[in-house]
């Protein structure tokens, strides 16, 4: 277990008080979380062994003020906030890893400021749309269906561990409210269809990119892997077998060496 701290960074854009969770040793690496809000899971812990991980919290989630989301009006605002966070942390050109919604944001940032991203890893990112394989409407599901959409093996120990709720009912209420609010706060930039023009901007991405997908992803089908690969010049795809939307939970054993090899190459 590494000790993490949360940095507070006042951002001029949108007057947003950013919060960035930081831990680890080594060169810097930025980690962008998924739509459900910041989660410090064994995958991130593992990254901290070799990197100083900076994990910004999306406006309205994690350690940020819940109402902060109301002053961030557009995707453009959000991208500029990330740029200011990079500036404040002195990150000139660093690897960026993003999962799901965070994967989309990694692509958006790498398209906006290609020189600031040295390498990119996206895990089952959203951000593109194919009419024949629509992205599942994950904001319009009862909890049990959402969970079944995220994971292939609900009964597996790592999935059960990821879904573990606190024992105190008060904490359950807070955790649930935070999760719903995080879906709303990230959903602000992808509602009602997560296709907000990324396809027009992806040609600008210069970072060598690893596109990882759970083969049986029910939220955003693994057929999207080739859509991302076709638009990111210097990219390759790794499909993880027998795995749903969250490879970092379901198949960490497989994912970890793939990511490590890519970052070390």
């Amino acid at each position, binding site marked *: 277990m590494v000790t993490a701290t949360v940095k507070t960074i006042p951002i001029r854009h949108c007057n947003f008080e950013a919060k960035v969770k930081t831990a680890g040793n080594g060169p810097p690496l930025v980690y962008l979380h998924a739509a459900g809000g910041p989660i410090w899971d064994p995958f991130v812990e593992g990254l901290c062994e070799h990197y100083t991980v900076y994990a910004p919290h999306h406006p309205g989630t994690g350690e940020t003020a819940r109402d902060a989301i*109301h002053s961030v009006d557009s995707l453009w605002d959000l991208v500029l906030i990330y740029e200011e966070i990079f500036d404040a942390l002195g990150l000139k050109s660093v690897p960026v890893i993003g999962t799901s919604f965070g994967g989309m944001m990694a692509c958006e940032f790498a398209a906006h400021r290609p020189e600031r991203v040295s390498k990119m890893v996206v895990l089952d990112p959203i951000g593109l749309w194919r009419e024949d394989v629509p992205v599942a409407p994950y904001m319009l599901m009862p909890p049990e269906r959402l969970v079944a959409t995220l994971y292939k093996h609900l009964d597996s120990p790592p999935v059960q561990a990821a879904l573990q709720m606190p024992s105190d009912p008060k904490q359950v209420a807070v955790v649930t409210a935070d999760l719903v609010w995080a879906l709303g706060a990230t959903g602000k930039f992808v509602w009602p269809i997560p296709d907000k023009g990324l396809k027009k901007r992806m040609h600008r991405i210069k970072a060598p990119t690893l596109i990882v997908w759970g083969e049986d992803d029910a939220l955003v089908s693994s057929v999207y892997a080739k859509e991302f690969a076709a638009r990111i010049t210097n990219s390759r795809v790794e499909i993880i077998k027998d795995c749903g939307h969250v490879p970092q939970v379901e198949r960490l054993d497989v994912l970890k060496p793939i990511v490590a090899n890519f970052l070390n190459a």
Partner: protein
Amino acid sequence: MKVTMFHFMPYRDLPDDFPGKLPSAWVDTPWWEYGDANKVTDYYNWSIDELMLAAKVGFDAIGTNEHHQNPYGFMCNPNLFGATLAKLTRDQGLDQVALLQLGATISSSPPIRLAEEYAVIDCLSGGRLIAGLPTGLGNDVSVSNGITPMEHRERWREGVDFILKAWTAKEFFAWNGKYTQLPKVNLWPRPVQDPHPPVVIPGAASSSTWDYCHERNFPYAYLSYFGGKSAYNVLDRFWDRAAAKGRDANPYRASFLQIVGVAETDRKAEEIFGKHVEYFYHKLLHLPLYYINPPGNADYKSLLNILSSGTNLLQIGDFTTDLKPLKAKDMIEKEFVVIGSPATVREKLEAMAKRLNIGHLMVALQFGSMPHELTKRNIELFGREVLPHLQKLWEDQPWENHWWPKKLRKRPVRQREMATA
């Protein structure tokens, strides 16, 4: 008390096995399997005729609303119906009836268009509009109309501010809002009512809406299908907030919606209306929470309050499952619906109005699968045996109704009274 006949305009002929495996009646009911446009021709015409009948038997107002992509009620733009009713009531000498638009959903339509349409209805009717300014349900605003849930409430607030200014400004103005930008606003026409038609804010028990109403001195309409008893907690807290914000307990600050069926005896009423009650709660109200409240729709504080309270505010968790075991008899017993003889209905509604301290009552006398003839009988019997009794309520009190069209504030003299005078 001012009493409104409120109409949802539902699809009245869904098959017995509906909804079957459909996850929701809203959004998810395929038109091509269940919808018949020729039947809908009848539904729209019957609904308008039923509201006109209510106007004839002496209701203070007739009410329409907006919902989308569902068989529960599909007056997609209530102002189409409000305009029709404004013209028909005027032509038929029913100038005593107000038009309660409850209303056009603010967050999902251009506010300039809503300001115009309401002004048109007020002009067409000669100043009889009550302008409902609803926030709308998540499924209507965000699912059926694509508005980002996180922006739903902000859009509503800005829309209301815009509409009030567009109605009243005595100068050209530019509107540089977050969601509406207009270079030069000069609304044509303006409402007849000066400074503007009375407004009412419908809501579903959100504490932030109560405070908003009290801060602006707007009345609140609590829309629930679970009857007066389930509304005690909500209205009590509404009145607590009123006191906290320095507002008086004028009952005309509040309205409540109630499904009502009247027949000669309690037993007959239960027999006649039972299946329509079940149709309404089991088929039409088949609406899951994830549609009503998509993430971002409820503000964080309300969300945490509801999740922490342990008990659901509405005493109903999920409409798609929790209502299904209840039979009409249960729903009558729990007073979700008020069904009975004229004496029973009078007694229950009066007790409810007094307990909730409401000066406005909206009754839905057509609900679910009720056919046209039965609906007419319900309206006539209610109009004859219940309505005059309810309209007298609060008359012995000094409260003034500031939230009703000025020319209609006196109790109407009904046509029948005039005929027999």
